């Protein structure tokens, strides 16, 4: 039997597995307080995913004050969308806007390297599409454990093949990334993915549902049992024994990507944007329909009604909670005026994309979701999407930090004899962190779309945005986590400075910053100290350089047992160049008689 709102009212004392879903006692109590009753299974599923660390940023949000405190009006001048949107957007001139963002897919990539990495690329590309942009290129900052560890042999080839398999099939050039080995990533490889896209400034689409009577359309792939891992406890609690029941517990929490479907979805979205028939749009990412419906409604000016049973399914016997939590890939949700629905459906049919009207924008301020006529969700959407819990986690500089900093390289023996120096240089040249990355980069298409001006082995990737004028953008991502571990504040500024330099030396002018903050557990005060220092370092560094942080992503809990990874705040810098023909390629010796100058000291 479906757990409806009426049923929830009638059975206030029904025990719910909220702890298994990751909610704390006080969080569950707050949900009951918001609703004035116990949540239904479907509501519980929604709140639990949306209030997870990953979706709610509950441990990190309090530190965002550093961004605002360090962003001056001049820095904001070119920013068309910033933190809080799917991705930051900057004005690069000539009527062009560029959007870019970094995101992590670390944990899924350890479980299933190929699909984890592939769906990481797929997810960030949909974020960029949700801004109304055409995705132009991807990058992939990667971190692995020791190169000779057997698990690295399992994880690395799969991750590289997954990044390539998805990006190549989507037709997005890979214009850069990083490959770093360090034993601290042994049980926690980092798969960060960046996507950059461009649009005309007037085509910027923000994710919100407004206009009473506008239709909510779900389009793209069918919804299946992918990635509902956690939520399956609901089914087993409620229906133990029957076909929706305990068997679900064994479901793998992995999603399988279908890059072909995403490629078609991209072209379909771009045609919809060109036709001007999209009022609001949202990608379906980590928290599936829970996220898309609550965020669209929360950011709009009304409520929303959704008939969940209209969602096209791939599996039989799915419960409303499962449909809401499914992480099936390659789906988008749009808000469309009633008069444009036919035109919308025609474009989807042309691209053979399944599209279904699942609801509409309503007066009032409730998100109401029905299942075969019965109400299973009735919530204020802001409480799901934007007013989740927020924590001031304890912060403490680790006790061993002083010892770590005191242990300088001065104690190491230095080679002095020529043959010692020679041996050292050879060892360095052959070391995995300095060796050629060709084995990786050769698996990535860097030519597709014909706009790649710089890619590996350049310091930054550069893409032509406007074919007529040659206007383009350059991007670099960097982070030396060993520096960050020694001094999170300065180390993060070094990451910023390196990415900034890598963009600048290509001939582009740095304009904006994104980040992906990969850290250990936020419940560890030492980790939170690293985190706070890193955020403040990045924010203040950006102020110094005069370029704003326009977005980013946080990945916590990157640790094995109680041992965290090195703090790894990957920083991405975007720059603009008015004519890519004036790019400066990496390398010396193209012409005889060149003079070599060393700048700085």
């Amino acid at each position: 039997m479906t757990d409806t709102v009426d049923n929830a009212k009638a059975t206030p004392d029904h025990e719910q597995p909220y702890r298994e879903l990751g909610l704390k006692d006080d969080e569950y109590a707050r949900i009951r307080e918001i609703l004035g009753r116990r949540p239904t299974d479907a509501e519980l599923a929604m709140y639990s995913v949306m209030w997870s660390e990953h979706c709610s940023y509950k441990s990190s949000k309090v530190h965002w004050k550093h961004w605002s405190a360090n962003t001056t009006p001049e820095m904001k001048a070119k920013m068309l969308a910033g933190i809080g949107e799917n991705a930051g957007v900057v004005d690069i001139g000539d009527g062009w806007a560029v959007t870019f963002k970094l995101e992590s897919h670390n944990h899924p990539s350890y479980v299933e390297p190929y699909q984890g990495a592939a769906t990481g690329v797929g997810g960030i590309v949909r974020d960029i599409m949700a801004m109304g942009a055409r995705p132009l290129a991807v990058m992939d900052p990667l971190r692995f454990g020791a190169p000779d560890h057997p698990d690295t042999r399992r994880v690395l080839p799969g991750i590289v093949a997954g990044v390539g398999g998805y990006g190549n099939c989507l037709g997005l050039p890979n214009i850069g990334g990083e490959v770093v080995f360090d034993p601290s990533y042994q049980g926690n490889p980092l798969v960060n993915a960046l996507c950059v896209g461009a649009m005309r400034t007037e085509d910027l689409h923000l994710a919100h549902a407004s206009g009473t009577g506008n239709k909510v359309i779900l389009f793209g792939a069918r919804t299946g049992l992918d990635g509902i891992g956690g939520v399956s406890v609901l089914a087993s609690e409620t229906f133990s024994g029957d076909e929706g029941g305990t068997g679900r517990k064994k479901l793998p929490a992995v999603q399988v990507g279908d890059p072909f479907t995403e490629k078609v979805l991209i072209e379909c979205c771009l045609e919809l944007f060109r036709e001007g028939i999209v009022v609001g749009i949202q990608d379906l990412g980590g928290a599936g329909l829970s996220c898309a419906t609550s965020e669209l409604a929360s950011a709009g000016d009304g409520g929303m009604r959704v008939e969940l049973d209209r969602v096209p399914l791939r599996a039989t016997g799915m419960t409303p909670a499962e449909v809401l939590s499914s992480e099936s890939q390659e789906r988008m949700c749009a808000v469309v005026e009633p008069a444009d629905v036919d035109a919308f459906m025609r474009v989807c049919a042309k691209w053979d994309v399944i599209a279904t009207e699942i609801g509409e924008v309503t007066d009032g301020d409730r998100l109401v979701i029905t299942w075969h006529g019965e109400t299973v969700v009735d919530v204020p959407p802001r409480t799901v999407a934007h007013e989740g819990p927020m924590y001031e986690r304890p912060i403490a500089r680790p006790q061993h930090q002083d010892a770590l900093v005191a242990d300088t390289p001065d104690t190491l023996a230095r080679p002095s004899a020529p043959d010692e120096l020679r041996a050292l240089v050879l060892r360095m040249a052959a070391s995995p962190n300095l060796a050629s990355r060709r084995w990786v980069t050769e698996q990535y298409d860097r030519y597709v779309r014909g706009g790649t001006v710089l890619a590996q082995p350049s310091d930054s990737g550069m893409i032509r945005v406007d074919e007529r004028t040659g206007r383009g953008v350059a991007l670099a991502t960097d982070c030396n986590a060993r520096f960050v571990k020694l001094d999170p504040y300065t180390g993060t500024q070094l990451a910023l400075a390196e990415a900034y330099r890598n963009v600048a030396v290509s001939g582009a002018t740095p304009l904006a910053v994104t980040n992906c903050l990969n850290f250990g557990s936020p419940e560890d005060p030492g980790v939170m100290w690293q985190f706070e220092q890193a955020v403040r370092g990045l924010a203040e560094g950006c102020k110094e350089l005069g370029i704003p942080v326009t977005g980013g992503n946080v990945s916590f809990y990157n640790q094995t047992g109680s041992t965290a990874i090195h703090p790894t705040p990957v920083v991405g810098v975007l720059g603009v160049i008015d004519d890519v023909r004036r790019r400066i390629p990496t390398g010396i010796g193209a012409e005889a008689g060149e003079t070599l100058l060393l700048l700085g000291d």
Partner: protein
Amino acid sequence: MARVVVDVMPKPEILDPQGQAVARALPRLGFAGVSDVRQGKHFELEVDDSVDDATLARIAEGFLSNPVVEDFVVRRVGS
């Protein structure tokens, strides 16, 4: 010497884009009546008689298939 066949298939609940692409194409090619297609891998191994079933299962599970997303079946098909 024995011939051993290992069939590896995506788990039923896992998306199978390849099988779906085939299923969608068939009606366009004029073939009606095929309601579902799933696509997996088929391995044929020439195996020494000394290799027992437990070893074959370990090869199939640990190497020929990816247990996170795939199931497998091992069959000896005579020599």
